């Protein structure tokens, strides 16, 4: 079942400089899709269009069989959440508890249920003991986890991670990636926007954007070894794949090493 269907989607700020051109894309329920692309390729714009922060110039977006327009944007935002890049700029509450509550307050959830959900989802992202902490006492990774809890508490089916790990230290990033994996296993549809190949490799499918157009759309494994596509969009091959390429160049044939390196790159 397709949870997101995008047809002929275009967007521009100035008509002669399109940001997105004729994007067609379907995402299945429970799928993990990565949108790869260099800076300015339109990947963040796509995320903002999906959640209705920007309005498409042409084309349609259907989320869970509901077409996104002015009347449906509020009900669609209940189904789709987004974690932005900067952990500081999306922390609305004065404390962790208040921040998780923010979305629930907007949905007019009764107070008792709100408290229950806050406890549940804080536990889920291991932030239970930080509920009364203020944002400046938290690390970037912890703040992003709070953002995830805030979205999960709203019972959304789809979560977009818009470069959510790019401002975190390796440990914080690892943890967020683990949560993505867990959530995906539990059936949450995940869209990650990144230019980090290590993150992309974890997903089911990869969409490569270049200058607002779809350059390639394939399974993660197929995109990762596609040297030409990646070079075109200023992305770097993963280290094990680079090693495989070098081995080929030097005519060193060792099937065992090759398959091991390939596996290594697929596990991130």
């Amino acid at each position: 079942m397709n949870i997101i269907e995008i047809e002929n989607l275009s967007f521009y700020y100035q008509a002669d400089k399109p940001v997105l051109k004729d994007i067609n894309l379907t995402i299945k329920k429970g799928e993990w899709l990565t949108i790869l692309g260099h800076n300015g390729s339109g990947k963040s714009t796509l995320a903002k269009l999906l959640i209705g922060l920007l309005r498409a110039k042409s084309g349609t977006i259907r989320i869970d069989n509901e077409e996104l327009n002015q009347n449906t944007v509020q009900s669609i935002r209940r189904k789709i959440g987004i974690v932005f890049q900067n952990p500081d700029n999306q922390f609305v509450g004065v404390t962790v508890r208040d921040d998780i509550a923010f979305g629930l307050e907007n949905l007019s959830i009764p107070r008792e249920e709100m408290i229950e959900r806050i406890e549940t989802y804080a536990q889920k992202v291991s932030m239970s003991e930080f509920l009364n902490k203020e944002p400046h006492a938290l690390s970037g990774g912890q703040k992003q986890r709070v953002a995830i809890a805030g979205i999960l508490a709203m019972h959304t089916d789809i979560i977009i991670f818009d470069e959510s790990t790019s401002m975190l230290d390796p440990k914080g990033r690892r943890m967020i990636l683990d949560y993505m994996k867990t959530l995906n296993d539990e059936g949450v549809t995940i869209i990650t926007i990144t230019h980090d190949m290590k993150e992309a490799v974890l997903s089911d499918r990869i969409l490569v954007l270049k200058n607002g157009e779809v350059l390639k759309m394939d399974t993660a494994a197929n995109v990762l070894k596609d040297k030409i596509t990646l070079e075109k969009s200023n992305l770097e091959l993963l280290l094990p794949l680079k090693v495989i390429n070098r081995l080929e160049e030097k005519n060193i044939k060792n099937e065992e090493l090759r398959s091991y390196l390939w596996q290594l790159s697929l596990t991130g």
Partner: protein
Amino acid sequence: MKNIVIGRFIPGNSFLYKMDPRTKIIALIILMISAFVLRGFMNMFIALGLILLLLLLGRINIIRVIRGLKPLMFLLLFTFTFQILFNETGPVLIVFEQEASWTLHYSWLNILAVVGVVFFWFFTRRFVRFRLLYLVATLVGSIALLINLQLGYVFNTGDLTIHQNAVETGFFIMMRLIIIVTLSTILTLTTKPTDLNLGLESVLKPLKYIRINTEEMAMIIAIALRYIPTLLDEANKIMLAQASRGVDFSEGKMKDKVMQIVSLLVPMFIISFKRSDELANAMEARCFVPGNPRTRLHQLAWTYADTITIIISLMALASVITLRVVGINV
């Protein structure tokens, strides 16, 4: 820049801390009105004594309260002097007669000149080396101005007569200001800014009848409170970045200082706008629609103690009004 204290809240534990913020705000308003109705030296001192008792029972650091009164000193002295000079009702208490060569000329323009001098002193004193000397010079200069200047209509010369009402009214105004500031200091010392915000929102709710949305205002204040530490952090970073390029924030002339502040303010503005844009996106993405009904996680609970507090403050108001009506103004 961790653990920044916003506002003047000092963590503590007493009945004043546990009280509902709405109660504190309403009681503060009632007691302020009482302070304005109050007259009489004895009554004033009794009121001050009661406030002192409140401070002791609430385990509030009195030194902090007094420190809070310090900025008021200028205003207090100013109003008192004004009363002494210009209130000419009631029986005469003392008359200072002046020699002819030392005649002081009181006219509105002269007084304006003196006020100008005093203001000049007030804003420039921090840049002057010998502050006490500067103060004395300002005072002597002001008197000299009054002696030598004769601008406009001179309505009073030389003799200074002090009337009873002048002393009384001046004193009462001083006491009332002290009482009001002390009371509001108690409120801000014992209430967290977020609770204060919540309380204000709740108390001001009737304003919706004149189309002022208090919920939105409270949201704005809450976000401002949330972002003060973040922006301070940012300001610190920018200052360090500018310092590494040779900007010295601590020294230099007035003109240089202005330029230095500009080099801090411009990036701060840009960053704040960028932040608020991203924050607005994040809020909207989480289904926030300004003006839509929302449920609240933090709900204030009204207890017996709160009702009693309000009754006590109403009783204070009632007794003050009774004293005034009956005419016990000792």
